[in-house]
């Protein structure tokens, strides 16, 4: 029941990862990036306001900067790295590029996870539902227009492939 904050392991993208010598206050964002090398999660505020650090924990999209890493034992953590292989980007990732939703790209991994989560839980969201679902992911470059287009493209592509 008690975990030493210094040695524990996390299940990330389906694999156990061991964490050693850590400080108790370390966020999952820090541990992912600085201890385990999962650089896909980005930090831009460390207070839950930007969403660039979004990961899935037990299929919930959460800010990894607000998760105490050592408290996330026995959960299933999925980072952006776990959503695709390098050779096979997901339809969402591809759509972000084709629709011009990526500029500097710093917000992008977090948004990819958020959109992935949105479309898993609601495959055909309305426009305003998309906006609400992405309201925790700040993008400073794009003004969001191309991001909405990318999401719409995925929705319509998926609808087409079902019908």
């Amino acid at each position, binding site marked *: 029941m008690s975990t030493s904050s210094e040695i524990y392991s996390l299940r990330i993208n389906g694999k156990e990862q061991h964490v050693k010598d850590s*400080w108790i206050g370390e*966020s999952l964002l820090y541990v992912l990036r600085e201890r385990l090398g999962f650089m896909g999660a980005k930090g831009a505020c460390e207070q839950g306001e930007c*969403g660039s650090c979004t990961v899935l924990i037990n299929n919930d999209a*959460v800010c990894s900067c*607000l998760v*105490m890493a050592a408290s996330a*034992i*026995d959960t299933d953590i999925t980072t952006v790295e776990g959503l695709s292989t390098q050779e096979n980007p997901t339809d969402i990732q591809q759509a972000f590029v084709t629709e011009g939703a990526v500029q500097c790209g710093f917000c992008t991994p977090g948004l990819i996870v958020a959109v992935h989560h949105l479309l898993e839980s609601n495959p055909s969201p309305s426009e305003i539902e998309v906006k609400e679902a992405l*309201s925790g992911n700040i993008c400073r470059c794009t003004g969001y227009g191309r991001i909405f287009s990318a999401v719409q493209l995925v929705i319509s592509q998926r609808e087409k492939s079902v019908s």
Partner: protein
Amino acid sequence: MTIFSPRSLAEALQVIHEHPTARLLAGGTDTMVEINFRHFEPTDIISLRYVTELQAFADQGHNFRVGAAIPYKEFENGSYAHVSRALSEAARTVGSPQIRAAGTIGGNLGTCSPAGDTLPVLSALDAQVELASVNGVRTLSIHDFMLGVKRNARAANEIISAIHIPNIDGYQGYAKVGVRNAMVISIASACLVHDPKNKRVALALGAVGPTIIRCRDSEVWLGENADLSTSAPLSPEVLEEFARRVSSEARPITDHRSTAEYRTHAVGVLAQRLLKRAMQ
């Protein structure tokens, strides 16, 4: 420096009994900000993630008993959205979807910020806070639980185990003013609950005082000047006088988020609008 992940409430209570200075960690959305910004240096942590009792829900007829660690998303549009319309409206205004997937009412109560969005709702509903310790369980009225700015009546060895939310038939609504359309801390908020059976309206304000303000005087005045047994529309004069009275019950400050004047004005407008929504 240890992090405890108890698997039951009994276990958790035992741990906190033995480590009364340990910090309880629910969704972490307040605590981790404190740690990241070095406002709080963690020593021992008790993670509530695996305390299943804190996720429990029961419809007890006259009220709902909701586990303290149920995340907001369940009230917003998830399994417990039916518990209270005002609560689900309030839940939907909390932070972003990511925050609502993690953050909990127990945490909102634990932090007890005057801007906490569920607190005006719990106040207007006269909710009860259930506190558990190795010595047993006690229930406190929300009004006795909230003591001041970020101060509450929880004893060091207690865990907020549940909130009892009265099941009230009638309009209830929450409205919150923030400068952007989502993900914003309240600069003024209000929750109004209409209970026609008991011919009363309850109104609580957020972010306009050191803690949540229940507008008792305005409520009494309204009871005396309007028929609250139905939801027939009220005259503009009554609505306006109600707004004026509510504004005068606010005790806001000026800070970088807004001015005292604006906050005073805004809660009046919110009260009037909510009352109109109730009585139509």
